[in-house]
Protein backbone atom coordinates (compact mmCIF):
# COMPACT_ATOMS: atom_id res chain seq x y z
CA UNK A 1 0.00 0.00 0.00
CA UNK A 2 1.22 3.47 -0.85
CA UNK A 3 1.45 6.38 1.53
CA UNK A 4 -2.11 7.76 1.69
CA UNK A 5 -0.73 11.28 1.46
CA UNK A 6 0.75 10.48 -1.96
CA UNK A 7 -2.47 8.93 -3.15
CA UNK A 8 -4.83 11.63 -1.95
CA UNK A 9 -4.36 13.88 -5.01
CA UNK A 10 -5.37 10.94 -7.22
CA UNK A 11 -8.51 10.49 -5.14
CA UNK A 12 -9.19 14.22 -5.27
CA UNK A 13 -8.83 14.19 -9.03
CA UNK A 14 -11.67 11.69 -9.41
CA UNK A 15 -13.91 13.43 -6.91
CA UNK A 16 -13.37 16.73 -8.71
CA UNK A 17 -14.60 15.18 -11.95
CA UNK A 18 -17.77 13.99 -10.25
CA UNK A 19 -17.00 10.40 -9.29
CA UNK A 20 -18.28 9.06 -5.98
CA UNK A 21 -15.57 7.17 -4.14
CA UNK A 22 -16.55 3.81 -2.71
CA UNK A 23 -14.08 2.90 0.01
CA UNK A 24 -15.82 0.10 1.90
CA UNK A 25 -17.61 -3.13 1.07
CA UNK A 26 -20.79 -1.71 2.57
CA UNK A 27 -20.63 1.31 0.27
CA UNK A 28 -20.12 -0.92 -2.77
CA UNK A 29 -22.99 -3.21 -1.82
CA UNK A 30 -25.27 -0.27 -1.14
CA UNK A 31 -24.74 0.91 -4.70
CA UNK A 32 -24.60 -2.32 -6.68
CA UNK A 33 -26.70 -4.88 -4.82
CA UNK A 34 -29.77 -3.77 -6.74
CA UNK A 35 -28.46 -1.33 -9.29
CA UNK A 36 -30.66 -0.13 -12.09
CA UNK A 37 -29.63 2.12 -14.93
CA UNK A 38 -26.10 2.76 -16.07
CA UNK A 39 -22.99 3.16 -13.99
CA UNK A 40 -19.32 3.48 -14.71
CA UNK A 41 -16.78 2.24 -12.20
CA UNK A 42 -13.19 3.42 -12.40
CA UNK A 43 -10.78 1.04 -10.72
CA UNK A 44 -8.26 3.70 -9.84
CA UNK A 45 -4.54 3.03 -9.54
CA UNK A 46 -1.38 4.81 -8.59
CA UNK A 47 0.39 3.52 -11.68
CA UNK A 48 1.34 6.50 -13.78
CA UNK A 49 1.97 4.26 -16.77
CA UNK A 50 -1.77 3.95 -17.30
CA UNK A 51 -3.77 5.67 -14.58
CA UNK A 52 -2.15 8.99 -15.36
CA UNK A 53 -3.94 8.84 -18.70
CA UNK A 54 -7.06 7.00 -17.57
CA UNK A 55 -8.26 9.70 -15.20
CA UNK A 56 -8.05 12.66 -17.61
CA UNK A 57 -9.49 10.50 -20.39
CA UNK A 58 -12.48 9.74 -18.21
CA UNK A 59 -12.79 13.41 -17.34
CA UNK A 60 -12.90 14.27 -21.02
CA UNK A 61 -15.43 11.52 -21.74
CA UNK A 62 -17.70 12.74 -18.96
CA UNK A 63 -18.01 16.08 -20.74
CA UNK A 64 -19.69 14.19 -23.59
CA UNK A 65 -23.40 14.74 -24.11
CA UNK A 66 -24.32 11.17 -23.17
CA UNK A 67 -22.93 9.81 -19.92
CA UNK A 68 -23.76 7.06 -17.41
CA UNK A 69 -26.37 7.73 -14.73
CA UNK A 70 -23.74 7.36 -12.04
CA UNK A 71 -19.96 7.29 -11.91
CA UNK A 72 -17.98 5.69 -9.12
CA UNK A 73 -14.41 4.86 -8.25
CA UNK A 74 -12.69 2.28 -6.12
CA UNK A 75 -8.96 2.43 -5.45
CA UNK A 76 -7.00 -0.74 -6.17
CA UNK A 77 -4.13 -1.32 -3.80
CA UNK A 78 -5.57 1.13 -1.28
CA UNK A 79 -9.16 0.16 -0.56
CA UNK A 80 -8.62 -3.51 -1.29
CA UNK A 81 -11.83 -4.93 0.17
CA UNK A 82 -14.01 -2.39 -1.61
CA UNK A 83 -12.16 -3.02 -4.87
CA UNK A 84 -12.52 -6.77 -4.57
CA UNK A 85 -16.22 -6.41 -3.85
CA UNK A 86 -16.72 -4.08 -6.81
CA UNK A 87 -14.97 -6.59 -9.05
CA UNK A 88 -17.33 -9.29 -7.80
CA UNK A 89 -20.16 -7.36 -9.44
CA UNK A 90 -18.31 -7.37 -12.76
CA UNK A 91 -18.63 -11.16 -13.06
CA UNK A 92 -16.11 -13.94 -12.70
CA UNK A 93 -15.02 -13.98 -16.34
CA UNK A 94 -13.38 -10.57 -16.06
CA UNK A 95 -9.85 -10.69 -14.72
CA UNK A 96 -8.78 -7.92 -12.35
CA UNK A 97 -6.59 -5.13 -13.64
CA UNK A 98 -5.95 -1.58 -12.63
CA UNK A 99 -6.55 0.96 -13.80
CA UNK A 100 -9.64 -0.26 -15.59
CA UNK A 101 -13.17 0.96 -16.21
CA UNK A 102 -16.38 -1.03 -16.23
CA UNK A 103 -19.60 0.26 -17.69
CA UNK A 104 -22.61 -1.53 -16.25
CA UNK A 105 -26.22 -1.43 -17.28
CA UNK A 106 -28.79 -2.83 -14.85
CA UNK A 107 -26.03 -4.62 -13.01
CA UNK A 108 -24.39 -6.27 -16.03
CA UNK A 109 -21.05 -5.25 -17.49
CA UNK A 110 -21.63 -4.05 -21.04
CA UNK A 111 -18.15 -2.63 -21.68
CA UNK A 112 -14.87 -3.24 -19.91
CA UNK A 113 -11.81 -1.15 -20.56
CA UNK A 114 -8.98 -3.24 -19.19
CA UNK A 115 -5.62 -1.85 -18.27
CA UNK A 116 -4.16 -3.21 -21.50
CA UNK A 117 -6.69 -1.07 -23.42
CA UNK A 118 -5.47 2.04 -21.58
CA UNK A 119 -1.70 1.77 -21.24
CA UNK A 120 0.35 3.44 -23.94
CA UNK A 121 -2.67 5.02 -25.64
CA UNK A 122 -3.53 8.67 -25.95
CA UNK A 123 -6.04 10.40 -23.73
CA UNK A 124 -8.13 11.18 -26.79
CA UNK A 125 -8.25 7.56 -27.98
CA UNK A 126 -9.32 6.30 -24.56
CA UNK A 127 -11.94 9.01 -24.25
CA UNK A 128 -13.24 8.08 -27.70
CA UNK A 129 -13.67 4.45 -26.61
CA UNK A 130 -15.58 5.63 -23.57
CA UNK A 131 -17.86 8.02 -25.40
CA UNK A 132 -18.63 5.34 -27.98
CA UNK A 133 -19.65 3.03 -25.14
CA UNK A 134 -21.72 5.80 -23.57
CA UNK A 135 -23.51 6.44 -26.86
CA UNK A 136 -24.22 2.73 -27.29
CA UNK A 137 -25.33 1.87 -23.78
CA UNK A 138 -26.33 5.06 -21.96
CA UNK A 139 -28.83 6.51 -24.38
CA UNK A 140 -32.54 6.63 -23.77
CA UNK A 141 -34.11 3.21 -23.46
CA UNK A 142 -36.96 2.77 -25.95
Amino acid sequence: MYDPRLVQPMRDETVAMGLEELTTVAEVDAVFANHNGTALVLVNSVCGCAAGTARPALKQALSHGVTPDNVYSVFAGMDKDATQRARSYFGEDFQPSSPSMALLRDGEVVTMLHRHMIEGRSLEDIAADLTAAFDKHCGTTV
Partner: protein
Amino acid sequence: MSGHVFHPGHHDLHGITVVVETSGDNTYVGRFDREDDELAYLKDVGVHEAGSQSWGEYLDRTMLYGVKVDQRDLVVPRAEITSVRKLTEVAGR
Protein backbone atom coordinates in the same frame (compact mmCIF):
# COMPACT_ATOMS: atom_id res chain seq x y z
CA MET B 1 -1.14 14.39 -10.68
CA SER B 2 -2.18 13.11 -14.09
CA GLY B 3 0.72 11.37 -15.74
CA HIS B 4 2.58 11.07 -12.47
CA VAL B 5 4.94 8.10 -12.59
CA PHE B 6 6.44 6.59 -9.47
CA HIS B 7 9.13 4.78 -11.43
CA PRO B 8 10.83 7.10 -13.91
CA GLY B 9 13.67 6.04 -16.18
CA HIS B 10 11.88 2.89 -17.25
CA HIS B 11 12.04 0.79 -20.41
CA ASP B 12 9.78 1.93 -23.27
CA LEU B 13 7.57 -1.11 -22.74
CA HIS B 14 7.54 -0.83 -18.95
CA GLY B 15 3.99 -1.31 -17.71
CA ILE B 16 2.68 -2.37 -21.12
CA THR B 17 0.88 -5.69 -21.52
CA VAL B 18 2.87 -7.64 -24.08
CA VAL B 19 2.77 -10.98 -25.86
CA VAL B 20 6.13 -12.70 -25.60
CA GLU B 21 6.60 -15.53 -28.06
CA THR B 22 9.42 -17.97 -27.47
CA SER B 23 11.24 -20.70 -29.32
CA GLY B 24 9.68 -23.18 -26.91
CA ASP B 25 6.06 -24.26 -26.40
CA ASN B 26 5.03 -21.29 -24.29
CA THR B 27 3.70 -17.87 -25.12
CA TYR B 28 3.54 -15.38 -22.25
CA VAL B 29 1.13 -12.47 -21.84
CA GLY B 30 1.93 -10.02 -19.08
CA ARG B 31 3.18 -6.59 -18.14
CA PHE B 32 6.69 -5.92 -19.31
CA ASP B 33 8.79 -4.73 -16.40
CA ARG B 34 12.41 -4.54 -17.52
CA GLU B 35 15.22 -6.38 -19.21
CA ASP B 36 18.94 -6.76 -18.85
CA ASP B 37 21.52 -8.33 -21.13
CA GLU B 38 20.23 -11.85 -20.55
CA LEU B 39 16.73 -11.75 -19.12
CA ALA B 40 13.34 -10.14 -19.59
CA TYR B 41 11.19 -9.61 -16.51
CA LEU B 42 7.40 -9.81 -16.69
CA LYS B 43 4.66 -9.32 -14.11
CA ASP B 44 1.18 -10.82 -13.75
CA VAL B 45 1.73 -13.30 -16.52
CA GLY B 46 -0.66 -15.64 -18.31
CA VAL B 47 0.91 -18.68 -19.94
CA HIS B 48 -0.29 -20.32 -23.14
CA GLU B 49 1.12 -23.73 -23.85
CA ALA B 50 1.18 -25.10 -27.37
CA GLY B 51 -1.32 -27.92 -27.76
CA SER B 52 -3.86 -26.44 -25.38
CA GLN B 53 -6.49 -23.84 -26.32
CA SER B 54 -5.64 -22.35 -29.69
CA TRP B 55 -3.18 -19.48 -29.60
CA GLY B 56 -5.57 -17.08 -31.31
CA GLU B 57 -8.50 -17.98 -29.08
CA TYR B 58 -6.32 -17.57 -26.00
CA LEU B 59 -5.21 -14.11 -27.05
CA ASP B 60 -8.69 -13.01 -28.10
CA ARG B 61 -10.14 -14.16 -24.78
CA THR B 62 -7.33 -12.40 -22.95
CA MET B 63 -8.04 -9.23 -24.87
CA LEU B 64 -11.73 -9.42 -23.98
CA TYR B 65 -11.56 -10.57 -20.36
CA GLY B 66 -8.07 -9.61 -19.27
CA VAL B 67 -4.98 -11.59 -18.36
CA LYS B 68 -5.69 -14.66 -16.27
CA VAL B 69 -2.56 -14.66 -14.15
CA ASP B 70 -0.64 -17.92 -13.88
CA GLN B 71 2.58 -16.41 -12.48
CA ARG B 72 2.96 -13.13 -10.62
CA ASP B 73 6.59 -12.74 -11.70
CA LEU B 74 8.29 -14.42 -14.60
CA VAL B 75 11.80 -14.22 -15.96
CA VAL B 76 12.38 -15.24 -19.57
CA PRO B 77 15.85 -15.72 -21.07
CA ARG B 78 16.13 -13.26 -23.93
CA ALA B 79 17.80 -15.93 -26.06
CA GLU B 80 14.49 -17.83 -26.07
CA ILE B 81 12.36 -14.85 -27.08
CA THR B 82 11.35 -14.66 -30.72
CA SER B 83 9.08 -11.62 -30.48
CA VAL B 84 7.67 -9.08 -28.05
CA ARG B 85 4.55 -7.26 -29.17
CA LYS B 86 1.81 -5.31 -27.44
CA LEU B 87 -1.28 -7.41 -26.77
CA THR B 88 -3.41 -4.78 -28.47
CA GLU B 89 -1.35 -5.23 -31.64
CA VAL B 90 -1.73 -9.00 -31.67
CA ALA B 91 -5.25 -9.79 -30.50
CA GLY B 92 -8.40 -8.67 -32.27
CA ARG B 93 -10.39 -5.87 -30.71
